[in-house]
Structure formats: C-alpha cells, structure tokens
C-alpha cells in the first residue's frame, strides 16, 4: 500500500482522569447494548421483529466511547447498525425495542424500524440505510453549526466499507475545505457483509484517506472504550475550536453475522477468527480496568449485570404488549401537517 507518513499528530493527552462513577455508567451502557442486542436477536427468531436486523455485539466500546465525549447539544448520525448508538445516547431500551417491534411507542412510531432510529430531542438524527448516505448529511449538520456560530459538533459513524463510496470522498473534501465542526468515525470491523476490507479497498490503512483532504486523523483501539473516548475528546475539541474536522478509525469487530440472515461466521471468516476477537471483549477490557483500579467488585458487577438484564426483559415485555400504530399512521408524516 502507499507509503505515506502520518500527518504529525497532536500529542495525545494522557487519558483525562476518569472516575469510578463514569466507568460504572460506561460499563452499564455496554452491558445494556450487549443484552439488548442478544434479546433483540432472540425476538427476531421468534418473529417479533421483521425486516433487516443488524446487531452491534462486539462493537459496544465505539458507540459508548464516542457518546462519552459529546455534549447533549451535539449531533449524531449513524448507519443502519444503530441500536448501540441510540442506547448509548440515552434512548431507553423500551423506546428502541418498541421501534424494532414496529410499535407506536417506538422512537419513530414504528414507521422506521431497526435501521432508522431517530431521537430529535437527543439530537440523534438517524439511523440511515444507504451506505454512505448520512456522511454528507453529517457534513451539512456541521455546516449548520458553523453557520449559526454555535460550538456544537456533528459526529458521523459508519462502517469501513463506506470509505470506498463517492459520498465519503465528496463529504470529507467539503468538510475539510470549509473547516466544518465534524468528526467522522469509521467503525472498522473488518468486513462489509462478506467482503473483507482488503478485497474492497486499495489501501488497508483507512486513516490515510484523510491525507487526501488535509484532515486530522487517528487510529484507535475500538475495543478499548477509554481509548475511543480519549481520541474522540481530541477530535471533538478540534471541531469545537473551529480547527476543522477529523477522521477517526476505530478498529473493532462484529461477533455476529452482518444481519440475522447471515451466519455468525460465514464462508468469509473462520470460527477461530471470531473466537480470537472475542478474547478482547470491549466489556471485558473495561471491566478488567475497573477491577485493577478497584472501581468495582465481582458482587457489584453481578448485581449490575442482573439489573441490566431485568431492564432489557422489561423492554421486551413493554414492546411486546405495546399497541401497533393506528392504521391512519400510514398517511401521516409524508408531508408536514398544514399549519
């Protein structure tokens, strides 16, 4: 691949000191995502959820690490693999599960489903199904922040397979040209459906694509939530200061298939590979750190886990018993209601 030297990076500040409280909430978020996704997978096999279901199991540290670096008034856009981000951003498991069940109580009233999670209040603006489709949208949100002279930041997360599509190129060029307050996060889980990165991209070092746009870039261990947060802190700060956008590459892995119709390890990867990655589980990594720091005892962990399991069970029960949208909903939200 191209021999390019990395653009001189700002010296990573030693990870901002984190408290036991923070770690506990991050650990909890990751557990929520993990249990949520496992239950969602079950519900899908039971026919309670339809369409495409893309689980986030294995990548939890990326969503949690990113959200941990953001303010409430920052904006987030993400692909169809969006449950983890929605939960980490604060959407309740009930609201997300109800949307997956297609119920009126769902975040999008049951009209969007798994791929299109929105929470305007929390500034989570989708949940987008077209690969690369939300990258220019995120640039546009950043444009609006600059236009209004606020110091808000627009964060856009997408998979590594999206870096080969035109909208990635056009959007990053404009974002850098106009110094927009955006952070583009590539969740590099190694595969786009059944296609390994090496079979789709002429270079393996995705972060180097940033040099085509004179953009700051960093590669970060996507299984280490705190590392993700630290890198995000730097990128978000650059964006807030008006220095410009950044491209972050988080190296991660999905334990499960691309979607429910895809085997955990199809022909495109081995059982061994999946097992190997499971060894550096994002929850395990943070849990281990917390133990060494004395932030959590085994009893506390067991209790926390049980508490989360109960919350997800409740979300399932809620979603299952929640009513369908009214038939009239078919024709609403196509256009704004005449004022």
């Amino acid at each position, binding site marked *: 691949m191209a021999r390019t030297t990395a653009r001189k990076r700002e010296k990573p500040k030693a990870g901002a000191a984190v408290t036991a409280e923070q770690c506990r909430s991050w650990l909890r978020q990751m557990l929520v995502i993990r249990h949520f996704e496992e239950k969602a997978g079950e519900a899908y096999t039971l026919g309670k959820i339809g369409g495409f279901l893309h689980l986030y199991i294995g990548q939890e540290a990326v969503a949690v690490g990113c959200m941990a670096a953001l303010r409430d008034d920052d904006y987030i856009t993400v692909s169809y693999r969006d449950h983890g981000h929605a939960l980490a951003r604060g959407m309740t498991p009930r609201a997300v599960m109800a949307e997956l069940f297609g119920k009126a109580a769902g975040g999008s009233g049951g009209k969007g489903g798994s791929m*299109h999670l929105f929470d305007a209040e929390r500034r989570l*603006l989708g949940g987008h199904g077209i690969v690369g489709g939300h990258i*220019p*949208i995120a640039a*546009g949100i950043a444009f609006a922040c600059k236009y209004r002279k606020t110091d808000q930041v627009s964060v856009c997360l997408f998979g590594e397979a999206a870096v080969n599509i035109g909208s990635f190129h056009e959007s990053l060029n404009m974002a850098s040209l106009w110094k927009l307050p955006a952070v583009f996060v590539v969740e590099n889980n190694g595969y786009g459906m059944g296609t390994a990165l090496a079979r789709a991209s002429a270079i393996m070092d995705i972060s180097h694509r940033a040099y085509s746009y004179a953009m700051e870039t960093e590669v970060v261990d996507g299984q280490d939530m705190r590392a993700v947060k630290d890198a995000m802190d730097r990128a978000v700060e650059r964006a807030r200061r008006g220095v410009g956008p950044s491209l972050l590459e988080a190296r991660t892995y999905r334990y499960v298939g691309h979607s429910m119709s895809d085997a955990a390890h199809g022909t495109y990867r081995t059982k061994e590979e999946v097992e190997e990655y499971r060894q550096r589980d994002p929850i395990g990594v943070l849990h281990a750190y917390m133990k060494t720091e004395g932030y959590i005892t085994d009893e506390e962990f067991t209790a926390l886990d049980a508490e989360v399991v109960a919350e997800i069970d409740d979300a399932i029960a809620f979603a299952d018993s929640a009513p369908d949208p009214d038939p009239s909903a078919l024709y609403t939200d196509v256009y704004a209601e005449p004022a």
Partner: protein
Amino acid sequence: MQTLTYRDALNQALREEMQRDDRVFLMGEEVAEYDGAYKVSRGLLKEFGPMRVVDTPIAELGFAGVGVGAAMVGLRPVIEMMTFNFALLAIDQIVNSAAKMRYMSGGQVGVPIVFRGPGGAALQLAAQHSQAFESWYAHIPGLKVVMPGTPADAKGLLKSAIRDDDPVVFIEGEMLYNLKGDVPDGDYTIPIGVADIKRAGDDVTLVCHSKTVGVALKAAEQLAEESISAEVIDLRTIRPMDTETVLRSVVKTNRCVVVEEGWPFAGVGAQVVDTVQREAFDHLDAPLLRVTGADVPMPYNKALERAAKADPSQVVAAVKTVLYRE
C-alpha cells in the same frame, strides 16, 4: 407592477427571502463569485456574504446531502443544481434522504429544502444536457414539484417553496430565463398546488407547464384564427397536482390535449390523462391526446433538435383530431 425577466424574478425571490429569514442560504456550483452559471444569483454574494451564498466543488451528491443535513437541523437551504441533468448524481439524497426523512423518523425530522435549477432542453446541448425529469420527481411521495412558466409565477412560487416545510424540487427553464413579464410589486406568494388558467376557452382544454405554457398559448392563438377556443391551463405545480382546475375545464370543453417537454412514457401527461379519464369519463367526447418531446435522446443538430421538441403545430393538429376536424 414591474416588468421583469424570469431570471430577475427568481433573483428577487431569493434576495427577498434571504432578507426576510436568515436561515435561508444558497449553495451550489458557481452560485457565489460567478453570480450563477445562468446569473440567477447575481449580486447575492455581495449582499449576503460567503456563508449564505456558497460555492461548492463539483460534488452534486455531496452538496445535496449537505443541504439535507442543514435542513434537518432547521436551516432553509436552497440548493442550486447547475442543471437538473447533473441532479441524477444527487438523486439518492433527494429521494432516499430528503423525501423520506420525515416519514422514517415518525414525524420527528422534516427537511425544508429547495432543490432548484434549470431543467429540460436549451439549444443544441445534446443528449446529456437536454432532459426533463419532472415526472421522476413527481412520482415520489414526500417531494413537491414546482415548475413556473412565467416571471410572476417564478417569483411567487419560489418564495412559497422556500417557506415550505417539505422538500421542493423547483425546476426552471433555461430557455425561460430571458422571458419578460409583469410581476407584482412587493412581497407576494403563489400557493403550491394551484394551477392557473392562462387563457380561457370553451372548445378544448390544453394542459401544460413550464416551457410548454408558451407553446400552448401560441397554439391557442393559431386555433383562435380558425375560431377554435382553447382553454390553457398551466399546472405550475406538478405535485401535488391541481386536478380540480383541470377537471372543471374538461367538464366544460369535453376535450383535452396535454402538452409537455419531456419524453412520453409515463410522463406527467400520462398522469393527467389517467386522472381525467377516471374522473371525467362521461364528459369526454374524444380520447385525451398528448404532445410530448420525441422519444429519443436529444440530438445536437439544430434541425433534428427542433423536430424533437413539442411545438404549437403539433398541438394544433392534436386539437383538430380531438375535435374531429379533418
């Protein structure tokens, strides 16, 4: 009343809306320092500065998406497509993002955006630069499609489009930019979804829009000389379509010819025919006929291009057919 070109009417609409609402901005290729490829944005950079009149790289998909994102958080982008031929590159953002966001989000996030620029053929620009896509956009729920044929309609409708809370595809005519016409003074709007009777008549209804308004009016004049009285209805908005106005006329004339610039298969006219024959079946004394552009890519040669375009003589001939004259 003032006399303005279609171009200057659009320019006034943009200027007045940008003065009225600082959420409104214009973005596209050559819109700022170059004053617009067709000078529709003349003077706007000078008045509003580079943050509100923004030149882009050649990246239709990208800057269309930038507009969608900005609109999702409350700005009012006007995205200029240098021509709608190039909008094919941006159509994923128009159809999959702008048109569906409100629905996918369960009503949480709307996209108040205008995609505007010239559509259809100009003169000898050949196949890739001479296409009319209004029937494509009008096919899509979630979009509104507006196509003014006069300076007054251009100004009033562009203002309505910018104030609209939903995505509007606003297609102008390169051949119309120099068209002069009376334009009301001051601030006025023309509602989206309302057709306009450009000429009253009793014997036949001519339905048209954008450039074919002129074609239909010329045909109506020629028909008048043969004492055939044609009513000319300018749709002005393609979606939502003002079917009442069309039906009211056809119920009176019992005959209808639909004129459009675009290709015949599943064009706007096909939808007009579908609606009219369904709603006014018992009032029709003849089948509805259509006059369209030739069903071929646009040729460069001047004579061939002229032959490919809908013209008044074809309209006159169609009218005589539905009137069973010769």
